[in-house]
């Protein structure tokens, strides 16, 4: 546990040092308003990363989150165009339900048919994107077609921060409680830590993985509406490739890809790290084209770091055999 704590401390320190370094030359970056903007800008990544964390904890992976986001977002936008007077609360419910349903498709295939999650979500990722095209024939839905209440909701300010940011805060608190204080949360860790032991303690491994996919899908669906409303545009390729950022945030945040280890706080810090880097690059006048390479390098460093901190645990009988696993 102390190792996990120190990981979060290190990450927090790294983010703090990064922000401080930028502040020495560009004090405007640490103005409260700008920090809130950076946080809000990173919120979609944080929400998705929390869902992805639950999935990775159960030894699965969900590569379809960005496609789920795009599909649900597009459906929300189309509903808004068809029925502009529908209250935002209804849209939110639709986004949550639809996201969960798409997540459940992944979950069922993994649970009932025992298909490797990476194959399932690679497949559904392309299928979801394709379905958006079938629905829209490639057309965009632009700002002027959406109603002001639809696009205004995530941007509305409340106590100095847009609603989008507050939604991130609320979900983070809920997820912390769920992961630490509920049977579902503990089951997720048990399944990832040791599936066989989990079975003997009476946990249904497949069902827990199914629930993890539903959670991931639900959060992706919610983010879909928020994303489309915030940027006021919906098209086939929104959030293209975002699933890799989401996995990167988890890995940087100390979530072990082998399952069973990782925390909500770590994941949030991992997402925040990527968010700060993304927002800082234009400030320090580095071409945004550097972002991809930086996040790639961050993933590799983080995963090497994860392996180091995980290795001391457990008794290594034959070191090279461990490598071969």
């Amino acid at each position, binding site marked *: 546990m102390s190792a996990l704590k120190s990981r979060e401390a290190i990450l927090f320190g790294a983010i703090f040092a990064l922000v401080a370094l930028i502040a020495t030359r560009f004090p405007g970056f640490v103005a409260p308003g700008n920090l809130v903007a950076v946080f809000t800008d990173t919120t979609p990544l944080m929400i998705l990363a929390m869902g992805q964390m639950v999935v990775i904890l159960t*030894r*699965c*992976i969900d590569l379809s989150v960005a496609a789920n986001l795009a599909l649900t977002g597009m459906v929300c936008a189309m509903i808004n165009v068809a029925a502009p007077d529908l209250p935002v609360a209804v849209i939110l419910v639709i986004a949550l339900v639809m996201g969960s349903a798409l997540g459940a498709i992944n979950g069922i*295939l*993994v649970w009932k*048919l*025992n*298909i*490797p*999650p*990476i*194959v*399932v979500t*690679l*497949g*559904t*990722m*392309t*299928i979801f*994107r*394709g*379905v958006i*095209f*079938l629905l829209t024939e*490639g057309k965009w839905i632009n700002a002027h077609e959406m109603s002001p209440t639809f696009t205004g909701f995530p941007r509305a300010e409340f106590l100095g921060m847009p609603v989008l940011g507050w939604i991130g805060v609320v979900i983070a608190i809920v997820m912390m409680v769920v992961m630490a204080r509920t049977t579902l949360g503990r089951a997720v860790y048990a399944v990832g830590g040791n*599936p*066989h032991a989990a079975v003997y303690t009476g946990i249904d*491994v497949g069902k827990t993985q199914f629930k993890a996919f539903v959670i991931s899908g639900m959060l992706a669906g919610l983010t879909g509406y928020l994303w489309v409303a915030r940027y006021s545009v919906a098209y*086939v390729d929104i959030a293209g490739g975002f699933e*890799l950022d989401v*996995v*990167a945030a988890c*890995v940087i945040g100390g979530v072990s*890809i*082998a399952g069973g280890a990782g925390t909500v706080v770590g994941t949030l810090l991992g997402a925040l790290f990527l968010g700060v880097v993304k927002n800082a690059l234009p400030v320090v006048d580095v*071409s945004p*084209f*550097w*972002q*991809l*390479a*930086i*996040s*790639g*390098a961050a*993933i*590799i460093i983080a*995963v*090497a770091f994860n*392996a180091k901190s995980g290795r001391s645990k457990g008794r290594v009988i034959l070191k*090279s*055999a*461990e*490598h*071969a*696993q």
Partner: protein
Amino acid sequence: MSLAENTPRHIPDRLRSPLQAKLVSWESLLLAVGIGIFIFNSLASPYFLNAWNLSDATFNFTEKAMIAFAMALLIISGEIDLSVAAIIALASTAMGVAMEMGAGTPVLVLVGLGTGLLCGAFNGALVTKLGLPSIVVTIGTMSLFRGISYIILGDGAFRGYPESFSWFGQGYVFWVITVEFVIFAILAVIFGVVLHKTNFGRMVYAIGNNPTGALFSGIRVDRVKMILFLLTGLMSGLAAVCLTSRLGSTRPSIASGMELEIVTMVVLGGVNILGGSGSIPGVVIAAFVMGLVTFGLGLLNVPGIVMSIFIGLLLIGVIALPRLWAMRRKS
């Protein structure tokens, strides 16, 4: 990743005869599907049965299949490389830089292959020397390699490759047989022999089935895996040479998303994504099937993104159907 690898294997009382086993094998099923698609395509479009069109259609899969052969070996050994498309981008960019510096065709090819080999070595070192899971490592290097391309190129592009360089992607060996197709065919034979007829091939299967067991049988697991990553890198470099030569230009977004199609091709070919089983003939047939599907749908004016739905359904369907079938037979 799943529990399936730990469940006991079902051993039948009597083995099926070799002929019967061949007839109900994955490869023959796939072949039947491929022939079905071929017949459907030739009935659906009058332009399908044309030597030149079919020759053009091979471009749909030759470059991907080159990588898929190496990827098949890698997946059989229990690892995966998601960075292959990014390696193409980086190798293509490196060739562009070399071209700007005035390199001729032989040097360009060497630069492309060399970059691929270096990228493969980087992946392999991270996986074997540091013991990291290949899926995360290659998701990381996927961003890193393509990121370097973006740093070098930004939103620009390299153009103006030498005339002789276009031979790889646009040349014909004789009549309608393209250079790429010949490379594809030669590689299919080489990889087939290596996997199915050599010690090295047996080692790959052994590692995929039980890495610890393989180690105790005296197989140098890390070295074999390193070689497989190098091979995958080299094949990506070769695909980069062909693709760059065919397109005649390099952008940092070149071949994006191709890694998914390559993994789909390998899995469609009957390679177990969890490692331990699969064959090169299966991958060859899968390459043809995917090429025929995309070409046929293209002739029917189906947009590319809708084709991706078919590819996605194909990927899930080919794995789900046998499992559904097995479940029905059990109950």
